[in-house]
């Protein structure tokens, strides 16, 4: 049983066990213990990882010879950080959801543990069918989390979430099947080198792009995210924001770029256009929100726009700057995971006290909750890309690299500096600062030990990555270099 296999199936088994436990306290501790165990495994995997070593911790066993699918797990520089992030967020999600569930507490924690296992599975799968199986299987726990423990309009949000992602992924399945038939195997590494005509690549690229664009989410297919976030319980929002969105980004860099380089080159303008729309248009939309979670959801879409921008700008840059932009995209994924998760925890803290997500219902929270106020301002600033926090790292690398591709591209992208600050700090201004008029706000007590632990656990990496991103960059650099030259070895003479 390989380390990665253990990291996938241990939480899932723990989830099933949680179903059987009756006493709520035992269930909670059990879930926490399971997620801590997985995190320890993730750290072991990270420590034993040699950045230049390509795919490591590999475990391969034939599973379905009839379809030539094999159970092949492995992590490289691009997927390892995301796996560690998932394990880390797993613990925090369980802590955030400590007393969210009033009924079926066993099912609540079981759903989260299984979700965590499946998410790690998505990042570790080196076999496309296995990737797809985990990619769709994680819809089930997330669907139940949003649906059962969400707030009033949860059903619409849960169904919309499921069907939206299902539509995207189903087209992706046809693309995978086509590739498997042509190349004779489901191995992702084989597909990277498998030669395809440019027409084939265009169709495959569009199918894969739609599948992952729904997940990122990219502009026209993003409307499920605000609903899903608004209705999901705080813990659900944390996992949704921190990890589920990264699968879209990860999918783009693992499938679209290496498998269909010519099509990626031909259609990079489309993706760049969509990402810039996401940054600017969604940035404005975020300004107009009155619901805190919706505002953060829209800001997530805008920040994820940077990931897709960073990835697909590489064809218009010199290789050195392309390294900068793609590393920036990955750093943005990791930092956005931490920052938006923290923001959702903060909103969850406020929601626990006043059961409202509406900005008007708050004001002057700093008076009664100074520690929370400080942390909330810190994370809002990180969301606005303040240097010294991880939010700044990814954005600045992508913006600086984008300039080489076109000054007006960089100008649009750089608008996030203004818009990001505007909507984040405007929310903070109305929620945290100012006099506390509402009586309820006066009655708030400050952070409990648990909440404090979660927020600090998120604050430390945000600061650490912000102040010294080099260790993380060195971890992903070799894989980024490999990705860039894979994306530029054109298969059907698609040279620019």
């Amino acid at each position, binding site marked *: 049983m390989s380390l990665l296999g253990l990291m996938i199936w241990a939480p899932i088994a723990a989830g099933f066990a949680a179903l059987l436990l009756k006493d709520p306290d035992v269930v909670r501790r059990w879930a926490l213990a399971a997620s801590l165990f997985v995190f320890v495994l993730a750290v072991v995997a990270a420590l034993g990882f040699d950045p230049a070593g390509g795919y490591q911790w590999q475990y391969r066993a034939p599973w379905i010879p*009839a*379809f030539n699918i094999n159970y092949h797990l492995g992590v490289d520089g691009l997927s390892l950080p995301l796996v560690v992030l998932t394990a880390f967020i797993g613990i925090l999600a369980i802590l955030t959801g400590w007393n969210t569930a009033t009924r079926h507490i066993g099912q609540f924690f079981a759903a989260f543990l299984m979700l965590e296992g499946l998410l790690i599975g998505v990042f570790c799968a080196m076999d496309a069918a296995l990737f797809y199986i985990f990619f769709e*299987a994680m*819809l089930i726990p997330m*669907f139940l989390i949003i*649906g059962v423990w969400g707030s009033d309009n949860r059903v619409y949000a849960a169904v919309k979430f499921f*069907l939206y992602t299902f539509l995207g992924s*189903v087209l992706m399945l046809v693309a995978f099947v086509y590739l498997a038939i042509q190349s004779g195997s489901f191995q992702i590494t084989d597909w990277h080198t498998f030669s395809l005509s440019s027409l084939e690549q265009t169709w495959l690229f569009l199918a894969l792009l739609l599948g992952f664009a729904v997940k990122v989410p990219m502009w026209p297919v993003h409307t499920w995210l605000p609903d899903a976030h608004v209705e999901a319980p705080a813990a659900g929002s944390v996992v949704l924001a921190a990890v589920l969105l990264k699968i879209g980004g990860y999918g783009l860099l693992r499938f679209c770029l290496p498998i269909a380089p010519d099509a990626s080159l031909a259609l990079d303008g489309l993706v760049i256009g969509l990402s810039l729309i996401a940054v600017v248009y969604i940035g404005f939309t975020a300004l107009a929100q009155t619901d805190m979670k919706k505002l953060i959801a829209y800001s997530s879409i805008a920040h994820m726009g940077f990931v897709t921008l960073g990835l697909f700008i590489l064809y218009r840059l010199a290789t050195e700057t392309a390294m900068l932009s793609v590393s920036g995209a990955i750093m943005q994924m990791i930092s956005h995971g931490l920052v938006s998760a923290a923001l959702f925890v903060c909103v969850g803290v406020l929601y626990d006290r006043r059961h409202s997500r509406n900005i008007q219902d708050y004001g002057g929270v700093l008076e009664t909750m100074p520690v929370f106020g400080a942390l909330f301002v810190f994370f809002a600033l990180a969301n606005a890309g303040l240097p010294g926090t991880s939010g700044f790292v990814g954005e600045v690398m992508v913006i600086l690299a984008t300039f080489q591709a076109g000054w007006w591209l960089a100008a649009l992208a750089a608008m996030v500096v203004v818009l990001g600050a505007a909507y984040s700090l405007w929310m903070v201004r109305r929620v945290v600062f100012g006099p506390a008029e509402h009586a309820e706000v006066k009655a708030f007590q400050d952070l409990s030990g648990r909440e404090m632990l979660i927020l600090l656990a998120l604050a430390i990496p945000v600061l650490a990555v912000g102040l010294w991103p080099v260790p993380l960059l060195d971890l992903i650099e070799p894989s980024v270099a490999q990705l860039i030259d894979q994306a530029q070895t054109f298969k059907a003479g698609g040279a620019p």
Partner: protein
Amino acid sequence: MSVAQEMILMLPEIVLVVGACFVLLCPRFLAWPLTMLALAGTVGAIVATAPEDPTMLMTGMFERSSEIDFLRILVCVLTVLILRYARGHPVSPDRLQSNEFYTLAIFGCVGMFLISGAEHLITLYLGLEILALSLYPMIAMVRDDGRAGEVALKYFVLGALASGFLLYGMSLMYAATGTLHIGELASQLGQLEMNRVLLLGMVFMLAGLAFKLGATPFHMWLPDVYDGASLPAVTYLSAAPKIAGLLLLLRLFSDGLMALAVDWTTLMMVLAVLSLLLGNLVAIAQTRIRRMLAYSAIAHTGFVFLALGAGTPHGMSSAVFYTFVYALMAAGSFGMLLLLNSRVASEDIEDFKGLNHSHPWLAIMVLILMFSMAGVPLTAGFYAKLYVLQAVVDAGLWPLAVVAVLLTVVGAYYYLRIVWYMYFEEADRPAEPGEDSAHVFLVSANALILVFIFAVPQPWLEMSRDVARVFVGGQ
């Protein structure tokens, strides 16, 4: 092949028929054990007399091959399962004090056995009619408000019309090729060049068989029968006959008319798309669980025809695997419905509301069944869909695959609706499923086997490939 040896190879059918007669005559309290004995005996006979390689019996009328035995055993197992599910139901044979239901069920199995081994048009027709004639009365089994009668009449008239089409097609084939033996038919067609009578015959046969599986536009009977007939009858109708229908199609088209493949594949694809479209779309508008499952059956038939429409051996084996998985899913779903219905007649989808709060275990089982129907991973339904997609894409029809896959997304909504009612909604009045622990155990096993097949799919895939190999090229 001496008569004695042929008798031994025909032992399963003999045991079945004898068993049926005994059940018919025996006193009521003996009906259930005797049926079980008969079916168990048949399974034993099948295993005991399995030949190494396929052998022709009855001067080429019947072929006994070990590959298809697995499906025959499956038919028996499904019949046992379904009859056991039906025991607790208020309209079940026990309560009605009639063992006709059991005899009809066994005769249905006889018909299916004949179909599975038919190598001659007469045996094929004979098996089909035995099955049909045992289904008509089962559906018309007396129910309070006469709905069953009305539905039975509709099913009877249309069924007769369909078998009329089939017969007429067979007669034209006979007139054109001069033979009724499927093997010879295939070789004759190899030499004959295309002529109108052949095409006419093929189309009529296809129409007749499309009716049996319920493919659009021949599906009209299916929703009414699923809705009108008694639940035990519908459960029987929904699972095993689908396998027989597929074997019929394979025997006739893949084994017999392979030479005309170009024509019937396009027709099957049209049937497939229509069925998928209609099945998935109209199911959304349903409020009664049975009609929803009826349209879902039509949608799944669409997928089977899609697989057959590929016209390749790969397509055939994916159709077999799909039908095998679908039979299990259908049996499980109706079994669950029977369980939920045993005390309170819950026909509406709303009755699933709040099931997670009252019975979490059953809710998980229904969840597995529904996600398997929708084709979501971690359940066998996903492999069935994947296998068919592979076959279709392999045959170069990937636009068709995209259409089919998009329609499944539309379809996923109404499966999701069941899960959402169970988990997200509060029940206005709590559902009280039956307390019969054996029934609960069987339904759970039925659902969990779908997950098991997902985990270890290889043996089942090899089984379906072997079954398909029997029908390739009319040997």
